[in-house]
C-alpha cells in the first residue's frame, strides 16, 4: 500500500500564522524572477534538498528532449512553513524520482523555477495540491 503524505489543518493554520508573524521575504522578487503566467513540468531525479529559511530549494536532474541532462533549481517554501505542512528534512531523499510543476524563470537559458506542485510516484507524496500549499 502506498503511503500518502498528509498535512493536517492544524499544521496548515500554524504555518499561516508563522508566515504572518515572521515574514520570509526573499532578497529577490518572485514576480520579477519567475514567469507566473507559464507552467512547466519537470520529471527527474532529486539530487539535493536544501530545507531552510527564507526559502527551501530542491535540485532535480531533468533530461531535455535531446537527452541532455540539466540540473534544475526549484525554489520552495520556507522551512518553517513546510514543517507545518508536514514536510521535514527527511521527507525527500537524494535519488527520489519526482514530478514537479513550476513557474519557469523569466531569464532565457536559466534552469530555475518556482515550485507549484511536487509529486513522488513511489509513495504518492504530494505537495501543492491542498489549500495553503503555495510558495510565498
Amino acid at each position, binding site marked *: 500500500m502506498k503511503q500518502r503524505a498528509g498535512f493536517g489543518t492544524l499544521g496548515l493554520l500554524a504555518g499561516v500564522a508563522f508566515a504572518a508573524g515572521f*515574514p520570509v*521575504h526573499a*532578497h*529577490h*522578487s518572485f*514576480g*520579477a*524572477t519567475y*514567469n507566473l*503566467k507559464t507552467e512547466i513540468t519537470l520529471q527527474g531525479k532529486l539530487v*539535493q534538498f*536544501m530545507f*531552510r*529559511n*527564507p526559502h527551501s*530549494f530542491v*535540485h532535480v536532474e531533468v533530461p531535455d528532449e535531446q537527452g541532455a541532462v*540539466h*540540473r*534544475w*533549481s526549484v*525554489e520552495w517554501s520556507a522551512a518553517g512553513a513546510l514543517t507545518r505542512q508536514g514536510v521535514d528534512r527527511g521527507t525527500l531523499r537524494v535519488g527520489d524520482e519526482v514530478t514537479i510543476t513550476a513557474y519557469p*524563470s*523569466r*531569464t*532565457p*537559458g*536559466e*534552469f*530555475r*523555477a518556482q515550485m507549484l506542485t511536487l509529486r513522488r510516484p513511489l509513495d504518492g507524496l504530494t505537495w501543492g495540491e491542498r489549500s495553503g500549499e503555495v510558495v510565498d
Partner: protein
Amino acid sequence: MARNNVLLLLLSLVASAPASAQLLVGRERSPPDLSGEWRLESDEDPGQPPLGDYLGIPYNDAGRQRSDTTAESIWGTSEYRCRPHSAPHQWRGLGGARILKELDPLTRDVNAYHVQFWRSLDRPIYLDGRPHPPAYAPHSWTGFSTGEWVGNTLVVTTTHLKDGFLKRGGPQTSDMYTMTEYLTRNDDYLTVVTIVDDPIYMDEPYVQSTTYEYDPNTIVQMESCVTSALGEAGGTDPHFVPHFLPGQNPYLTEWLGEQDWIPEAATRGGAQTQYPEYVLASPSGTRRAALPLSRSALDVGRMIAAQSPRDGEVHVLPVQGNIYMLVADGTNITASVGPDGVLLVNTGTVLMVNKVRAAVDALAAEVAAAPRPNPCAGANCAGNPHGWASPAMNAIVASPAAARPIRYIINTSAAPEHTGGNAKLAVEGFFARRGGTNVTGAAANASVIAHENALATMSAPPGDAAPLPPEAWPTDTYFYDFQKLSEYVNGEAVIVYHAPAASTDGDSIVFFRHSEVISAGNLLSTVSYPFIDIDGGGSVQGVIDGLNHILDLAVAEYRSQGGTWIIPSHGRLADTADVASYRNMITMIRDRVRQMIDDGMTLEQVIAARPTLDFDGRYGSTQGAWTTDMFVEAVYESLAQR
C-alpha cells in the same frame, strides 16, 4: 518650625548655587534626537513596481536599457546572493529602522548616527566633520555618509556607493550616484526625503520620501546569509550571467495587459514623467514641462577620472595585511611591504619611476624600519639579552634602519604602463642569488617575474628592436597555469596565475594569500572598458575567464562585499561585488555582439548599433588611447575569429 527651617535651607542652597552649575543640569535638545526604534509608516509607492514600469523615474536611454536588460535572477548568482538592499531602497525595506547614537565620551556630542535595517549593514553617518575618502577608495552598499544639521533637519550626503537598484525588482543604478537625505523629526514621526543623483542613468535627480513612526516596541530583525543563499541558481555553470539582450525582454509590458489605461510611453520613464505637467489625458498626447527642471549636481566625468588621478603624483592607499595600493599618475601599483622587503606588482610608467621609488622607500621605512615606541620601562623590561634597560633605546637614539630593498617585481603583462619602471627599480633592488650579500652587479638585481609570453613581448624577436632594455626584462618567467613564489614574502604565500588570451597572451594575476588581496592587472579597470590587444593575443573571452578566476579565488567578508580586495590596473580599489558587476557587463556586451554577428552584422553596423549604450557613460570614451569603438572592435574581432 522645623519644616520652615528646611525650606529656608533649600532656598538658600538654590540661591547660592553658581549659574554655570545650573546650566549643566540639562542641555537644550536642539537639534532633535533621532535615535530609537522606528517603524515604517508610509511612502509614495503602492509596492514593488511591475517589470518595465519606470513611470516617474527620470531615466535616460542608458538607464532604461540597463534596467530592461537586467534579469532579476542575477540575485541567485554567487556574488549577488547576500547583497543587502541597495541604498535608495533601504528606508523602504521591511522591518523598520534602528538609529543609534555614537557619543563623544568627553563632550557628549553626537559624533555619528548609525542606521540599521533588517537587510542591511550598519550605516554610520558621521557628524564630526571628517572628509569623504578619496575617489580611489572602495565603494560599499551603504557608502560613506556625513551629516550636517540645517535647522532641525539632518542633511546627509552619501558617496562611494556600489551599483544596485533604485527600486526592488528592476530599475537599476550605476555605482556613481550620490544620495542626499533630509531627515526631519516631528514629535514621533521621522520623514526621510531621499534624492538620488545618478547622472549615468538619469537626466535629473530622483526624489522619494518615506515616513517612520517612533515605536520602541519594534525590533530590527537579524538576517544572516552565511549558508541560506547556496543553491539558488540552476544549471551547472557557476559563472552564468542572467540577462536579456536589448529589445528582447518580452515581459516589460506584460502588466499593461491588466492596466491597459496606461500608455506604454509613460511606463518608459524619463524626466518629464516626474511632473504634474505630464498629463496623460492631454489631447495632444503629452504636455511637457520645460525640462530639465533640475540638473545633476555631479560632474560625473570628473568623478570617474578622480578614481584614477593623472596628476603626476603617487597616492598611497593601505589595503589589507601587507598590501598597499599606489596610485601613480593614474596607474595602480601593488606593493607588499614588510620585514622581507618590498614586492611590487608592476612598476608604473617610466616617467613616474622616481616618485614611485620615493613612495616605496617611504613606505618601507615606515612599515619595516621606523622606530617603535618603547614597549616597556625599567623593571618591566627584564630579560633584555643585550643588557640595556630598554630594548627600544637603540631605535630611539639612533636613526631608523635603512628601508628594506625591493626584492621582487611581478609584471602582470608587458604593457608599458606596468613595466616602465622595471629597469631602474630592478637595478636598485636586491635579490640574493648565489648566497647572501656578496652578490653584486646585475646578479643582485631584484627578481622580475612574469609569464614567458610577457618576456617575449618585452624582449622582441631576434633582430627586432626590443621595446625595453634587458635590465627591465623578467629574470624569472613561468609557463604553467600558475607559479607559486618559492618562499614566503613578508610572511605569506604569493601565487601568480596566468590569464590566457585575456588582455594579451601574457597576462597574470597575483594572489596574496594571507593578506587576501589580488592584483588584477589589466583584467580590471574601474575607469574604462578592459584593454584587449587582439594582435597581442588577447580576447574578450579570455578577459571574462580571467575575471571569473578572480571571483573563484576571492571571498566576500560579509554581505557580498569586502573580504578579498582586488586592485585594478586603473581606478578604485574593488571587491568581489565590483568585479562581478564588471564581469557581468563584459559578458552582456559579449553576448550582444555575438548575437549581432550571428545576425550577419558587419563591424561598422555593430559599432553603429551601440551594444555598449548602457555602460558608455560609465566606462566609455570617445577619445584617448582606448575608445569605446576600439573596445567594441576588439570584442567583435575576438568573437568573429571563432
